[in-house]
C-alpha cells in the first residue's frame, strides 16, 4: 500500500449557514486510527461525510497527500454511513458483487462467500437484504470493507446495532486493518475500548 496521508486543517462544517463545530485539525497516517467523539448534533456525521467527499468543508481544507485530487482519494477510501447502502431487494451476494463491480474491483464468487463467512452471514447468500436484522444489515455493509480492501476506512457509528460478539469482531477487524498499514476514521459516541485504542481522539465542540 502507498503511504497516503490525510490532512485536515482548521476545518469546519456548516449547517444552514452556521458552523457546527470549532475548527479541527487531524493528520491521519497509515497504521493509525482516529475517533471522532461528540454529543448528538455536534456534527460527527457531517464531518465524516465531508471527509468522504459526500459533503464539503465550509472553512479550512482537506488534502490527501500525495494525491491532490479527489478521484485518487476516492480510490483509496471507503465510507459506510448511517444509510448503509444495501439495496433491499438484492441478495447479500448481489449487494457485495455490485459494490465490488462499481468500484472496479474484480472478485471471484469464492471471495464473496468468504467475505460473507467472515462477517457471520454464512447461509444468507441468497437472502434479500431486507430480510436481515438491523445488526446483520450492518454486517453486510461492513463486509464491503473486507471485500474492497481500501486503505482508509471511514465509518459512521460502526458499532451501533452490533451485538457483543459483533463488536468484538469489528474491533479485531479494525485493529488488524491498522496493523496491516490501513487507517480508520470513525465516530463512536460511547465505546470506551475504541476510544482508548485511538491514536487521535477528536472531540467536537461548539464553535
Amino acid at each position, binding site marked *: 500500500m502507498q503511504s497516503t496521508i490525510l490532512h485536515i486543517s482548521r476545518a469546519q462544517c456548516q449547517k444552514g449557514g452556521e458552523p457546527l463545530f470549532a475548527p479541527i485539525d487531524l493528520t491521519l497516517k497509515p497504521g493509525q486510527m482516529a475517533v471522532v467523539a461528540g454529543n448528538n448534533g455536534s456534527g460527527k456525521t457531517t464531518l465524516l461525510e465531508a471527509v468522504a467527499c459526500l459533503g*464539503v468543508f465550509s472553512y479550512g481544507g482537506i488534502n490527501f497527500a500525495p494525491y491532490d485530487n479527489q478521484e485518487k482519494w*476516492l480510490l483509496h477510501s471507503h465510507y459506510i454511513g*448511517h*444509510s448503509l*447502502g*444495501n*439495496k433491499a431487494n*438484492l441478495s447479500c451476494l448481489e449487494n457485495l458483487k455490485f459494490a465490488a*463491480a*462499481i468500484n472496479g474491483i474484480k472478485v471471484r464468487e469464492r471471495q464473496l462467500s468468504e467475505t460473507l463467512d467472515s462477517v457471520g452471514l454464512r447461509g444468507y447468500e441468497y437472502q434479500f437484504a431486507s430480510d436481515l436484522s438491523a445488526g446483520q444489515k450492518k454486517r453486510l455493509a461492513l463486509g464491503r470493507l473486507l471485500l474492497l480492501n481500501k486503505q482508509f476506512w471511514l465509518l459512521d457509528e460502526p458499532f451501533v446495532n452490533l451485538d457483543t460478539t459483533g463488536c468484538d469482531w469489528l474491533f479485531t477487524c479494525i485493529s488488524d486493518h491498522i496493523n496491516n498499514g490501513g487507517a480508520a476514521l470513525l465516530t463512536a459516541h460511547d465505546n470506551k475500548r475504541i476510544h482508548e485504542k485511538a491514536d487521535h481522539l477528536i472531540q467536537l465542540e461548539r464553535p
Partner: protein
Amino acid sequence: MRFWILLQRDVLVAWRKKSNIYQPLVFQLLIVTMFPLGLGAGAQTLQKIAPAVVWILALISTLITLENIFKDDYEDGSLALYVLSGMSLPLAVLGKAAAHWLTTGLPVILFAPVIAVLLHLPSTAYGVLMLSLLIATPIFSLLGTVGSALIMNIKNGGMLLSVLIMPLLAPVLIFGAGAVLETTLGNNPSGHLSLLAGCFVLSLSLAPLAAAAAIKVNLE
C-alpha cells in the same frame, strides 16, 4: 463497464419489484376508462382526442415514476456507493436513465397500442405513435433524472418535480402529440418527428450534466 453494472443492478431491482413496472400501465388504463365515461363513448369524439390523450397518458404515467430515480438510492445510501466509486457522475446518470427507460419507457411504448385501440385511434397512426414514443420516452427518463436529482432529499417532492419539468416537457408534447395528430389528418409527420429527435439529442447531451450538478449540490 460501470455504466452497465449500474444499469444491470437497476433493472434487476426494478424487475424484483414488478409493481413499479406495471403500475404506470394500470394507471393509464384507469385514466383512459374515464374519458368515455366523462366525454361520451362516441367513437368520433374519442377519435378526435385520441392522439393527444394517448400521448398525455404516456407522459403522466411516466411522470409519476420519476421521483424515485435517485430518491431510493439516496435513502438507502447506495447513491454514495456509486458517487464515491470514482466513476464519472454524468455516466452514472446515463446508466440510471437507461435503466429507467428500460423499465418504464419501454413498457409504455409497448402498451400504447392498447390505449390507442380503446380510443379508436385511426390505424394509420399506430406506427408514428410508436415511433414518436420511442424517441420521446428516453427524453422523459433523461429529464426525469434532472428532476429527481433536484428533489432527492425532500419529502413529497413529486408535485415539485412535476412543476420543475413540465415546462421542459411542453415542447416534447407539442412535437410528439403533433406528429400523431398530423398523421391522423393525413399529413406528413416527419417535421414533428425530426424536431422531437432534436429534443432527444439535446436532452441526451445536457441532462446528464445538469443531473450530475444537482446531485453534487445536494450532497454539499
